[in-house]
């Protein structure tokens, strides 16, 4: 497969993987730690959405599905599929526990992307493409414009029934 097309497909898959899993696991509902609350309220002050802000704060403060997706991609590239992804899931779980997080989102994200990498290898998408794709995916959430991305995350949280009840 052409490298550029592969990276674009991998970016879309990675984006959906981590956003859907993190939202399902309740990241927009409440901040897990103080830092996530500060980030969430800071984004709201700048015209963003509070639930989306909590989401962004939570993925900064502990390794959630975004980190799981990236680390599993790197581990699959470095060690092999699926062993790398399984090792990454274990390490992400320990990282979660160190960061005051129960660890469901990160571990689930690492395991699902490992399965996806194994399946998409049949159509020529490599773990290296997933690493670049995940970097692009996380850049669209954390790197471009926080108010807009937090509003999008807030809408997704609302649709999935995970919108925050905090003010």
């Amino acid at each position, binding site marked *: 497969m052409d490298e550029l097309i592969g990276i674009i497909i991998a970016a879309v898959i990675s984006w959906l993987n981590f956003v859907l899993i993190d939202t*399902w*696991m*309740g990241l927009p509902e*409440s901040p897990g730690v103080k830092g996530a609350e500060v980030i969430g309220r800071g984004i709201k002050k700048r015209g963003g959405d509070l639930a989306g802000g909590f989401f962004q704060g939570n993925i900064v403060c502990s390794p959630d599905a975004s980190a799981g997706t990236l680390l599993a991609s790197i581990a699959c590239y470095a*060690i*092999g599929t*699926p*062993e*790398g992804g*399984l*090792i990454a*899931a*274990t*390490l992400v*779980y*320990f990282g979660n*526990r*160190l960061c*005051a997080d*129960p*660890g*469901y*989102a990160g*571990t689930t994200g690492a*395991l699902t992307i490992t399965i996806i990498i194994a399946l998409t290898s049949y159509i020529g998408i490599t773990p290296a493409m997933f690493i670049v794709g995940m970097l692009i995916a996380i850049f669209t959430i954390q790197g471009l414009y926080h108010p807009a991305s937090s509003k999008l995350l807030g809408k997704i949280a609302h649709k999935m029934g995970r919108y925050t*009840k905090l003010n």
Partner: protein
Amino acid sequence: MINYIVYMIAVGSAIIVGLLLRLPLLPENPKRQSWTISVIFPTAVLALGFTAMISKLGYLNSTNTDYIIALVVGIITSIFSKFILERILPRPVHDSPHEPSLSSAEPPEEHEKIKESQSRSGSSKNSSEYKNKSESSKNSNNESEDNSSQMKEESHG
């Protein structure tokens, strides 16, 4: 070529030994906020990860001993989850409406002992501080109960 049977043996033995050690099969609801160590999560996931580590370190070499190694990995993982994991990576100590605090998780005998020792010492300041603390913990417990009842209502709705 990956030997899936090795992974299945590791997960299977981890689940069986975990159940024998009286680990719960699944965390309590709401699962995504639960800190309970259960058989499915994280024991089975850790068994997969530890088996992958053993495999990549070169200890699995496609012989019948691989199955025994996988069995041992599963058993060690469940023992690790039951007795060691909570000690090396404890749940956080802070009062959050979604997470039970360690102070509220203390047995009531501990509270009684503290109360008795403070009443014996006779310092009114300490006892008033304790009262305030117990009141605030009661309030936080009420809040958490309210939140949990709200969440229950939502899940029913």
